[in-house]
């Protein structure tokens, strides 16, 4: 995530999370998705004990695994909420959080699914490893997954947290830069109100506005506010900037 190294963007992440969970409906969605994911984790994490997905797995659910199920459920629920929010707002953030969330989910389950199952020895036998090599390799691989479960779970949690927090910070940063652009646009409009056209086109303010998204467009004009103006999926055509209320108000009217 490009914003992970940006301290200002990191500071904006909590505000973005508040926006993601800002309505009762979104909060409920987060809680429901977290609960569902945590429920499945309570069945999936003890898979190594029973080799089955069934409620009997709860018999092997100790406090350690239960805690991980809850934490991972909350983290995955947050990522899903961020993802759902991003689907409406920022296409790029959607793609980023979706991929990382999937990787984190797979990583969290690797120890449960690759330790004590016939998967690894069967794969090794399939690719032609045999004899002493099969024993050595199978033991080493399955032992690795068996003893490093905590590290895998921690890594997946870190990945979930980073893709949720990083995703929020990313579009929050873009939202802020979009707002700044809108503020510059307002200033430019004031200039245009009393300056000759030639002076306006050569104004340094014009060059400071974001290039690709504004290139070839007329100067910003006030846009009538109305229902639905802040519900468009993208803030700007051809960019993935969010459609903040500020940027929407300053966007030129269609046509």
């Amino acid at each position, binding site marked *: 995530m490009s914003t992970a190294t940006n301290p200002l963007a990191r500071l904006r992440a909590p505000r973005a999370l508040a926006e993601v969970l800002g309505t009762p409906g979104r909060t409920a969605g987060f809680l429901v998705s977290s609960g569902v994911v945590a429920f499945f984790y309570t069945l999936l994490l003890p898979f*190594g*004990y*029973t*080799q*089955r*997905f*069934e*409620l*009997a797995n709860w018999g*092997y659910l100790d406090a350690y695994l239960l805690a991980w199920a809850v934490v991972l459920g909350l983290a995955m629920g947050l990522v899903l909420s961020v993802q759902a929010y991003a689907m409406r707002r920022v296409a790029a953030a959607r793609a980023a959080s979706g991929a990382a969330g999937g990787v984190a989910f797979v990583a969290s389950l690797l120890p449960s699914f690759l*330790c*004590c*199952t*016939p*998967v690894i*020895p*069967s794969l090794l*036998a399939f690719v032609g490893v*045999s*004899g002493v090599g*099969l*024993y*050595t390799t*199978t*033991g*080493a691989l*399955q*032992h690795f997954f*068996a*003893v490093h479960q905590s590290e895998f779970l921690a890594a997946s949690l870190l990945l979930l947290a980073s893709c949720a927090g990083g995703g929020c910070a990313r579009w929050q940063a873009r939202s802020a830069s979009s707002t700044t652009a809108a503020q510059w646009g307002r200033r430019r409009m004031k200039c245009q109100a009393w300056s000759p056209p030639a002076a306006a086109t050569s104004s340094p303010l014009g060059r400071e506005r974001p290039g690709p998204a504004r290139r070839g467009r007329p100067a910003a004009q006030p846009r009538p506010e109305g229902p639905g103006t802040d519900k468009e999926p993208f803030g700007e055509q051809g960019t993935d900037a969010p459609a903040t209320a500020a940027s929407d108000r300053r966007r030129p009217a269609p046509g």
Partner: protein
Amino acid sequence: MAVALHVANSGSGPAPASGSAGASGVPPSVGTTAPNGTFTTLAGKTETVAGLRGKPTLIWFVTTWCSSCQAGTQAMAQDVATLAADGVRVVEVENYADLGQSGPAMSTFAKALAGSAFSSPDWTFGEVSPALTRTYDPKAYLDIYYLVNAKGKITYVNSSPASTMPQLLGAAKALA
């Protein structure tokens, strides 16, 4: 909701050719005679698989650092008496050197997980030679068991007793 992932070598599954066990990477199959070999009990006594004939026996190969083996041993502690009632004794042995990885000693593993059933006369713990490990567990599964009848024939093969105990008890009852 019950999706299983087993070794799946039950009696109804495809049976490898008889006599090809171990050496060619194929585990002994249902209907064949259990290959002979030696194992050492925790008491230090050396015994043979052939010497187990005369009484139905469950020969179970485990790896002590394997979570399904630990859970299976706990499950076995609950049902060893049921198996004994059907005339079946249990011989639980550690794969040679825990498949080359460090794990708890078999004695520690057994005492901790079998509990009071550790001292049951129908449950023997031990360690096996490299040859016997390769013969019965050629694919290096962490956990695999064979139910052998009184004549030394294999009647049922599977793994993870924690999840396959009902099938195992059914197979044992069929021997009675």
